[in-house]
C-alpha cells in the first residue's frame, strides 16, 4: 500500500512539473527562512543559560526614585559583592565583573590588541567556562595570573600549551598565564580574549574605585540551592544604604541570570520585557512565512483537485475508506515537504554566512546534534501535515458516484476557501512591505537629525601607554605640525556616552530631586574642536582665562532644567567642587540618535579625567596627509603602542546598525513573502486560465476583445488583493506604531506609506497574473472550443 502511495505521488509530481516546481520551491523557500529564524531563536533563548548553576545565579540590580520614576539599573558599587558574601550565608559566590576594555598584549616582541575584563576568582566556579589547561581553583587567584581563551592563545603564542608563560599588558604589567579557556560559545555576554584578576584594577588605578556611591561594575551572585529569592532580596535591600551611612539611597535586589538577557528591561520599577519581544516577533514572522508557503501548497493542490478526482472515485469504489485516502494525501504532502525540507536546508546553509553577517551572529547548523536532526524531521512532518491537511480533507471528500460518472463539478480557481488563503498571504505581504518602508523612514529620520556637532574630519585616540604622560606635548605637536586645526583632551569620546551622575546641584534646585546629567570632562577647546553651536557664552579656554580650570559648559536641556534667567556666570556643585558656567551649547547627540537629549555637563580641567584625545583635522589639507602627520606624533610620544585613530562619523553610523539590521530583515522577509505568494498566485492563475478555456472561447466568439478577457481574469484576482490591502493597513499601523514607541525621536506614520505598500502589492500581483490571463485571452477560440 505504502509503495503504491509513493509510486502515485512521484508520478503525479512528475506529470505536473510546473506545479510541482512551484509547490516544492515555494515550500523550500519558506522552510529555509523558518530554519534560519529557528536557529537564531534557539541561540537567543539559550543565551547565557548553558551554565550548570544557571538556576542559582543572579544579577544584582540597583533601584532608586528619580523625579517620581523608579529607575532600575545594573551597574553596582564595587564593595557590594564582597559585602554580600561576607554578610549572608545564603551566598555561595559573589563575583564582580567590570566592563570589557582594550589592552595591548605582548609576548616575545609580538604585540596584539586584546579585549579583556577583570573578575573575582570565583568567576570560573560560578560560570561554566571549562578550562583547556590550568586549574579552576588557582587560575585567577594570584594578582599576576591571567586566563586567556584558546583562540587568543593561538593568535599570540601559536599554540594552546601556554600555562606558565609570561606576557606583558599595556607595556607595563607582567602576567603569567594561569589557564587557557575553551573558546566561549557565541551566545554569552562574557565574550573576551582574556580575563584578568580583580586585583588588576587596583594595580592600575589604586583602591579609589571601591566606593558605595560609584556604580560602575556588575555583580553576579550564586545563592545556595533552595534559597527563597523574595526573602533574600528583602534582606539585602538596604545594604548600600547601611554601608554608605545613608548617603546613598539605592536599593539592591537580585534578578535571575537566566531571564536577564531576554527579559531585562524595566520601566518605572516594573519588568517591561526586553529582547523577548523581538524574539517573539521573529517567531511570529517565521510562522507566517511558513504558513504562506503552506497556503501555496493548499491552494495549488485543491485547485488541481479534479486531476485527482477520478483516482479518489476509483479508490473509493474499490473499497478505500475516506481515512485511508486522507492518509494517502497526507503522506504525499509529507513527501513533498521532505523534498522541500532538503532543498530548504541546502538553501539555509548557503544563506547562513550572509545571514550571520547581517544579524552579527555566528550561527551554524549542528548537523550531528540529535536534537537538531529530530527538530528537522519534526519540522518536515509538521509542515507536511499543515500544508496537506486541508487538501487531504478536500480531495478525500469527493463523491465517488459523481466523479466516476464524470459529473464532478470543475471548480473555478478562486472559490471561497482559496480566496481566504490568498487574502491571508497578501495581508501578511502588505504588512511586511509597509513595515519595511516605515522602518527605513525612521532610520532616515534619525540620520537626518541635527546631531549638534560636526562629525566630518573629527578623529579620536583613546589613551594608552604614555599618552597620558605626554598629552600636552602631543596636543602641541598636532597643532604645530598642521595635522589639526583644534585638539581637545576629554574624559570620553563623542560616540559612547560613558558617564552620568545625579550629583549635580545648583541654586534653586528643588530639594530632594534627583536628576541625572550626562557628563564629560575636558582640558579645554571642547567647543572649538567639536564645533558646537553656542547659544550663549564661550568655550572653556584655560590659556586665555586662568580661572577656567573650574569652568563648565552645559547644554540647552540642562539650562532649561536649571531655569536660570542668565545661565552664564552661575555656579554648579559637582563632585565636591564649585563650577562656574561659561557657556551654553546646543544639545548634541551623545547617546542613541533615536533618543531624547539628556541634560549635560562638561567640566573643566580641574576634574582631570583624561582618557581621549579628540582631533579636528585641518580642513585645508588632504585628510591622508593630516592622518600621516598625526600618526607620526603618536608614534613619537607613545612608541610601544599601535596608533588607533577612529573617525567619529564612521563610528556614529554604527548607532544605526541595529535598526538597519531590523530594516534589512524586514525587507528580506517582505521580498520573500511576496515571492512565495506570487508563486502561488501564478499557479492559481495558470489553473484558472486552463479551467476556463471554454468560457473564454465562448466569450471571444461572442465578441469579447483580448483586453476584455484579460481584464476579466485579472479582476477576479485583484479583488482579494484589494481586500488584503484593506486588512493589512490597520495591522501594519498597530505593529509599526508600537515599534516606534521604542524611540523618543521618531517619525510620523503617513498615509502615503499605506498607499505605496498597497499599490506595490497590487502591481506585483497584477504582473504575476497578467502573463496567464493574456496567454488565455490571445488563444484561438476555435481551438479551445473544439477541445471540449
Amino acid at each position, binding site marked *: 500500500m505504502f509503495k503504491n502511495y509513493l509510486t502515485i505521488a512521484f508520478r503525479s509530481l512528475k506529470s505536473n512539473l510546473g506545479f510541482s516546481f512551484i509547490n516544492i520551491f515555494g515550500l523550500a523557500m519558506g522552510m529555509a527562512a523558518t530554519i534560519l529564524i529557528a536557529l537564531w531563536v534557539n541561540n537567543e533563548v539559550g543565551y547565557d543559560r548553558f551554565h550548570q548553576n544557571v538556576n542559582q545565579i543572579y544579577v544584582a540590580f540597583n533601584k532608586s526614585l528619580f523625579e517620581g520614576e523608579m529607575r532600575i539599573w545594573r551597574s553596582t558599587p564595587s564593595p557590594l559583592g564582597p559585602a554580600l558574601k561576607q554578610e549572608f550565608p545564603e551566598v555561595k559566590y559573589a563575583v564582580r565583573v567590570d566592563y570589557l576594555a582594550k589592552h595591548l598584549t605582548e609576548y616575545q616582541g609580538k604585540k596584539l590588541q586584546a579585549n579583556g575584563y577583570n573578575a573575582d576568582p570565583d568567576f570560573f566556579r560560578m560560570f561554566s567556562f571549562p578550562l583547556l589547561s590550568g586549574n579552576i581553583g588557582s587560575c585567577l587567584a594570584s594578582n599576576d595570573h591571567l586566563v586567556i581563551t584558546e583562540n587568543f592563545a593561538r593568535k599570540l603564542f601559536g599554540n594552546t600549551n601556554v600555562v606558565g608563560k609570561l606576557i606583558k599588558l599595556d607595556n607595563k604589567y607582567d602576567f603569567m598565564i594561569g589557564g587557557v579557556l575553551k573558546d566561549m560559545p557565541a551566545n554569552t555576554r562574557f565574550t573576551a580574549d582574556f580575563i584578568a584578576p580583580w586585583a588588576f584594577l587596583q594595580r592600575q588605578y589604586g583602591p579609589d574605585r571601591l566606593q558605595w556611591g560609584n556604580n560602575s561594575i556588575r555583580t553576579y551572585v550564586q545563592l545556595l540551592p533552595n534559597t527563597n529569592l523574595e526573602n533574600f532580596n528583602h534582606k539585602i535591600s538596604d545594604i548600600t544604604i547601611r554601608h554608605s551611612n545613608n548617603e546613598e539611597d539605592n536599593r539592591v535586589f537580585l534578578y535571575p541570570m537566566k531571564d536577564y538577557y531576554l527579559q531585562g528591561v524595566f520601566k518605572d520599577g516594573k519588568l517591561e520585557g526586553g529582547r523577548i519581544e523581538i524574539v517573539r516577533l521573529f517567531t511570529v514572522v517565521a510562522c507566517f512565512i511558513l504558513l504562506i508557503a503552506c497556503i501555496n501548497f493548499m491552494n495549488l493542490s485543491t485547485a488541481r483537485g479534479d486531476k485527482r478526482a477520478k483516482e479518489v472515485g476509483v479508490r473509493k469504489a474499490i473499497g*478505500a475508506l475516506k481515512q485511508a485516502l486522507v492518509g494517502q494525501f497526507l503522506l504525499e504532502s509529507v513527501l513533498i515537504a521532505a523534498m522541500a525540507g532538503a532543498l530548504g536546508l541546502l538553501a539555509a546553509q548557503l544563506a547562513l554566512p550572509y545571514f550571520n553577517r547581517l544579524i552579527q551572529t555566528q550561527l551554524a547548523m549542528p548537523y550531528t546534534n540529535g536534537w537538531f536532526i529530530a527538530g528537522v524531521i519534526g519540522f518536515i512532518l509538521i509542515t507536511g501535515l499543515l500544508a496537506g491537511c486541508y487538501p487531504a480533507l478536500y480531495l478525500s471528500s469527493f463523491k465517488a458516484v459523481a466523479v466516476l460518472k464524470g459529473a464532478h463539478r470543475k471548480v473555478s480557481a478562486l472559490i471561497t476557501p482559496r480566496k481566504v488563503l490568498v487574502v491571508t498571504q497578501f495581508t501578511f505581504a502588505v504588512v511586511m512591505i509597509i513595515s519595511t518602508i516605515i522602518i527605513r523612514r525612521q532610520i532616515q529620520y534619525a540620520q537626518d537629525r541635527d546631531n549638534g556637532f560636526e562629525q566630518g574630519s573629527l578623529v579620536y585616540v583613546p589613551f594608552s601607554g604614555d599618552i597620558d604622560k605626554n598629552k600636552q606635548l602631543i596636543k602641541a605637536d598636532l597643532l604645530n605640525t598642521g595635522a589639526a586645526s583644534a585638539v581637545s583632551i576629554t574624559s570620553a569620546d563623542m560616540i559612547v556616552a560613558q558617564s552620568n551622575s545625579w550629583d549635580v546641584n545648583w541654586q534653586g534646585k528643588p530639594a530632594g530631586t534627583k536628576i541625572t546629567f550626562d557628563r564629560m570632562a575636558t582640558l579645554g577647546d571642547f567647543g572649538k574642536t567639536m564645533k558646537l553651536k553656542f547659544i550663549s557664552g564661550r568655550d572653556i579656554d584655560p590659556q586665555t582665562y586662568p580661572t577656567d580650570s573650574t569652568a563648565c559648559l552645559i547644554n540647552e536641556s540642562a539650562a532649561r532644567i536649571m531655569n536660570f534667567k542668565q545661565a552664564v556666570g552661575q555656579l554648579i556643585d559637582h563632585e565636591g567642587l564649585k563650577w562656574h558656567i561659561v557657556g551654553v551649547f546646543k544639545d548634541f547627540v551623545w547617546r542613541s540618535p533615536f533618543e531624547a537629549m539628556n541634560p549635560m555637563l562638561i567640566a573643566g580641567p580641574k576634574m582631570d579625567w583624561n582618557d581621549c584625545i579628540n582631533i579636528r583635522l585641518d580642513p585645508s589639507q588632504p585628510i591622508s596627509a593630516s592622518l600621516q602627520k598625526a600618526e607620526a606624533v603618536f608614534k613619537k610620544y607613545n612608541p610601544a603602542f599601535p596608533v588607533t585613530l577612529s573617525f567619529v562619523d564612521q563610528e556614529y553610523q554604527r548607532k544605526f546598525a541595529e535598526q538597519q539590521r531590523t530594516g534589512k530583515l524586514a525587507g528580506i522577509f517582505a521580498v520573500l513573502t511576496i515571492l512565495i505568494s506570487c508563486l502561488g498566485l501564478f499557479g492559481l492563475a495558470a489553473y484558472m486560465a486552463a479551467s476556463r478555456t471554454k468560457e473564454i472561447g465562448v466569450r471571444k466568439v461572442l465578441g469579447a476583445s483580448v483586453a476584455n478577457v484579460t481584464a476579466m481574469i485579472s479582476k477576479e484576482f485583484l479583488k482579494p488583493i484589494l481586500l488584503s490591502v484593506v486588512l493589512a493597513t490597520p495591522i501594519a499601523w498597530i505593529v509599526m506604531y508600537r515599534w516606534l514607541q521604542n524611540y523618543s525621536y521618531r517619525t510620523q506614520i503617513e498615509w502615503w506609506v499605506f498607499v505605496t505598500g498597497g499599490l506595490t502589492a497590487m502591481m506585483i500581483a497584477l504582473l504575476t497574473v497578467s502573463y496567464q490571463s493574456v496567454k488565455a485571452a490571445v488563444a484561438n477560440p476555435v481551438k479551445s472550443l473544439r477541445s471540449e
Partner: protein
Amino acid sequence: MIKITNLEKFYRTEEVETVALNKLNLEINTGEFVAIMGPSGCGKSTLLNILGLLDDPDGGSYLFNGTEVAHFNERKRADLRKHNIGFVFQSFNLIDELTVFENVELPLIYTGVNSADRKQRVEEVLTKMQIMHRRNHYPQQLSGGQQQRVAIARAVVNKPKLILADEPTGNLDSSNGNEVMELLTDLNEQGTTIIMVTHSEHDARYSHRIVRLLDGHTVVENIMM
C-alpha cells in the same frame, strides 16, 4: 442474491425535490445477467450506485445475500464492496499515473493480498483479458477497447460475486463493444452475477433479463430466451 423492497431515493435542491427511485422492488438471483434500461433520468444509475453501495437509499430495504445493508455505515459498506463487488464504468476510470499492471493490482492491495499472490493473480487475469503484453503501459497509451479490458480485469481480479457495469460499451466502437460484451458473458458463464445499465438494445440482448425503469419504478421485465 439481491432483494430490494420499496426502495426510495430523492434528490433535493433548494426549490425542487426529485424522486429518483419510487418504492422500487427488484430481486436478482445469483448467477443472473441483468440489463437495466430506460430513458435518461429514469433512475438507472441511481439504482446501480445503491446496489454498489456507493450511495445510500432514503427508504426501503436492500438485502444483499440475506443481510440488510441499506443502512450500513461507510466502513461496512467499503468492506462489503471490496470483497464482493466489481465496477466497470463507461469512461473506464483508470488511474493515469498507474500502469496497466498497477491499475489491476489496486483492489488486491486494498484487500490485503500479499505481493507474490498479487503478481500471480494480476498476470492471470491480464492473460485472460488478452492484455498481458501491455502490462507496463499507461492507460493513455491504450485504445479505448484495451482500456475497458483493463477496467474489466480490475473489476474481476478480486473474484467478486457481483459485477456492476454502467454503460460499459458507451465509449467504444461496435467491434470493441462486442468484445467487451463477450468478456462479460464469459464471466457470467463462470458464475459471476452481472448487473449492467445500458442504452443499447444490442448489448441488452446478451443478458438473461431486461429491467425497464420509468420515473423511478419498474415498468416491465423481459425475460430473454
